[in-house]
């Protein structure tokens, strides 16, 4: 018999015996024990610490037993796991039933906006991307969690929640220093490439002969462009299959906007320095004065139609036309997402790590027979306008959001469910299922070291210093739902060559200013937009920082590094 079991069983029996006589008889403890033994085996807590955490949930949930709460989140593996498995665990342990609905993120945003607008309770809580932090902070309709846990939510706040352990709290904090959302899952957009192809001596030699430097992880957009050209134009075929040096998508569809509002301009270097977002000009090109948005067009001090932004769109259009598969201009996000797994793509500059699990399917040609990937992810290359101290990529932080229009008792019950899903008892197992880390303790756990080789560099990225430069949309954006559609509607004009990149961005910047004015006219609780007077763009272009003047040379020499050094480059 296993010696651990000899000790564990009597201790557990004694524990159950003791709690059965405690004044707070823990009715769900047997159920909790079952879940701890079957599902939550991997945790940074010891079994006893997990039991204590579960005992707290059982006790705190008593007033809400029998209640059914309803929450909603976007459609990714992590949330499916929550909706189908963790709701059952929570219900078994606490007696609170949860319907966890799954839908597209656009629908989540429409639903939360509707509830905020109508003050009519549709859901008891939302897992909503932290990109809306600027909206939430200004609306006055979102509960400040940092206040809630000290006041009416004090009794239902988990003592072992350990907020300092979360990696994404800076994304969900308003300019007033208050926490408005709590991250439930996070994933990033990184550079993706076929490590097996890049390691081939014949391709390395050929690349060096043409471009004069090593075929490796590109550090700037020049190298990315060279590698894209190399595979599409010079290599053309590998092992009898057509190959491409780039993949992207350009269909006029809301999903086209995500690519750009998430991080494209920041990757080129369009905004100012500042983590998590550039100040005073962020990666949307919106300038703030204090916390007040004052404009997006260069003529008002913004950078949305500045040289760096226009350069980034020009490169997007050129690469899509010259190096991506021929039909990619007509694809949307979902259609394009499947392509790297089919084995014809050498690299992709903008790849969401939420696809990690899907791309480690052993049936795919990009996966080895032992299940390890032939590909890797690495920090993305920087555009010529990017400078140290700036945000580079995007990190999605789906975060628990509570609205003031939700009745307090329902909000408290939903807060218990939210904390259960991010508790240390549950979070490591959830990370193993969905690969969307939220806690430092999980990222640095022994378990993640054991399994890191399976995930193509995901764990290495999250453990590196690079991580801090990957951030969501920030607080300069005052009303995300009212402004976001401008991205896909205008970028599509450039992608489909109806307008030049300069004209598309001029049009978009003008419309963004108008929308900012509309947001101001409609009114917000705080930090309401107030547009700068339009003046000669040269005035702003000659000031330090964003908007930045056009560089004389937008294509410096390509630079690459080995995979290991590409991570160290951020130390």
């Amino acid at each position: 018999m296993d010696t651990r079991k000899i000790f564990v069983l009597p201790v557990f029996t004694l524990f159950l015996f003791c709690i059965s006589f405690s004044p707070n008889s823990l009715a769900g403890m047997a159920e909790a024990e079952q879940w701890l033994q079957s599902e939550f085996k991997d945790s940074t807590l010891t079994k006893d610490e997990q039991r204590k955490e579960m005992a707290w949930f059982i006790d705190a949930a008593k007033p809400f037993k029998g209640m059914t709460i309803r929450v909603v989140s976007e459609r990714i593996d992590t949330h499916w796991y929550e909706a189908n498995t963790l709701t059952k665990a929570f219900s078994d342990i606490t007696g609170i039933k949860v319907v966890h609905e799954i839908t597209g993120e656009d629908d989540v945003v429409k639903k939360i906006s509707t509830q905020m607008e109508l003050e009519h309770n549709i859901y008891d809580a939302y897992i909503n991307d932290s990109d809306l932090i600027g909206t939430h902070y200004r609306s006055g309709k979102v509960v400040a969690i940092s206040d809630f846990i000290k006041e009416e939510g004090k009794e239902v706040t988990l003592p072992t929640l350990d907020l300092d352990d979360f990696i994404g709290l800076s994304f969900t904090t308003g300019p007033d220093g208050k926490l408005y959302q709590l991250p439930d899952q996070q994933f990033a957009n990184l550079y993706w490439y076929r490590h097996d192809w890049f390691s081939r001596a014949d391709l390395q030699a050929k690349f060096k002969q043409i471009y004069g430097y090593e075929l490796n992880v590109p550090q700037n957009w020049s190298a990315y462009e060279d590698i894209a050209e190399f595979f599409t134009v010079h290599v053309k075929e590998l092992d009898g299959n057509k190959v491409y040096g780039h993949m992207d998508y350009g269909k006029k569809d809301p999903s086209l906007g995500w690519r750009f509002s998430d991080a494209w301009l920041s990757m080129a270097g369009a905004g100012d320095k500042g983590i998590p977002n550039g100040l005073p000009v962020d990666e949307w090109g919106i300038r703030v004065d204090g916390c007040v948005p004052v404009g997006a067009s260069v003529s008002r001090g913004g950078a949305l139609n500045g040289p760096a932004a226009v350069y980034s769109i020009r490169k997007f259009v050129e690469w899509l036309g010259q190096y991506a598969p021929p039909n990619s201009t007509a694809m949307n996000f979902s259609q394009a997402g499947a392509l790297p797994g089919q084995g014809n793509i050498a690299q992709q500059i903008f790849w969401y790590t939420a696809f990690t699990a899907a791309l480690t399917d052993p049936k795919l040609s990009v996966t080895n027979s032992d299940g390890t990937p032939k590909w890797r992810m690495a920090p993305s290359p920087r555009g010529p306008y990017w400078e140290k101290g700036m945000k580079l990529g995007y990190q999605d932080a789906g975060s628990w959001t509570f609205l003031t229009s939700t009745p307090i008792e329902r909000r408290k019950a939903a807060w218990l469910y939210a904390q259960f899903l991010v508790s240390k008892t549950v979070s490591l197992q959830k990370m193993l299922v969905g690969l969307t880390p939220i806690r430092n303790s999980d990222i640095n756990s022994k378990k993640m070291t054991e399994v890191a080789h399976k995930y193509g560099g995901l764990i290495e990225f999250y453990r590196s210093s690079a991580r801090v430069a990957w951030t969501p949309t920030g607080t300069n954006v005052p009303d995300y739902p009212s402004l976001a559609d401008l991205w896909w509607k205008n970028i599509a004009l450039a992608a489909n060559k109806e307008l030049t990149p300069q004209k598309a961005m001029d049009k978009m910047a003008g419309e963004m200013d108008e929308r900012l004015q509309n947001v101001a006219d409609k009114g917000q609780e705080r930090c309401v937009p107030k547009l700068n007077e339009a003046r000669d763009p040269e005035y702003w272009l000659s000031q330090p920082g964003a908007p930045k003047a056009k560089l004389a040379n937008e294509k410096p020499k390509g630079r690459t590094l080995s995979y290991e050094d590409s991570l160290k480059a951020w130390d």
Partner: protein
Amino acid sequence: MNIKIILASLCFILMSLSSVQAATFTLLTEELPPYAMKVGGKPAGATVEIVSKLFERTGLDYNLRIVPWKRAYVTTLEEKNTCIFPVQRSQEREVKFHWVSPIVITQTGFYTRNDFDKNLSTLNDVEGLKIGSYKGSAAAEYLNSQGYKTSLITRDAPNIQKLKAGRIDVWAADTLTAVHMMKERGIKDVKESLVYFTTLRALACNLSTSSDTIDKLTVELKKMYTDGSVETIMKKYQ
């Protein structure tokens, strides 16, 4: 001034005036009790009442007709001053219309026989079960998009008999429609097992509709929610 130019200008002004006066909206919906149905030959129902009141309060003239969904959809895509309701907004549809939302917030649930003993608490619980719905329903659309197989027929009502006869295990239906159908037929041995999805349904208007009109309708709709008008109408049908 050249007489031709004067005449042309007059014609243009007259045509502009007549087009302003002729801006009567055609509002299209399908037969879907209790949201939309004909009572005494006239359109009635929850969403018919909400949309009619919305246009009246906004001061816009309208004709409301109940027609097959496909015809309503294609007509709204092609003809100006036409709107369709209640439509679920999706990324695919987003670019095709101007939107006023939500006309109504609906829910979809799983219905089972009273003697069905499996506890349904998540979507996963229906895996392997035979789910019945009808072609083109939002319930089926959602389940199919999540990879669940559904057994579809042309009308929803016969699903109740199929459920009772054990030819399907679960009936996926709009909660308001299901209750209405069961009440009408005196069904007592079917129960609601899990309400699994909430949908915002909108008024979708032809792309030529002015943003000014859409804004006015949106503002008025919000007022109808805050002053309780929508709730009062919905309560009549629950």
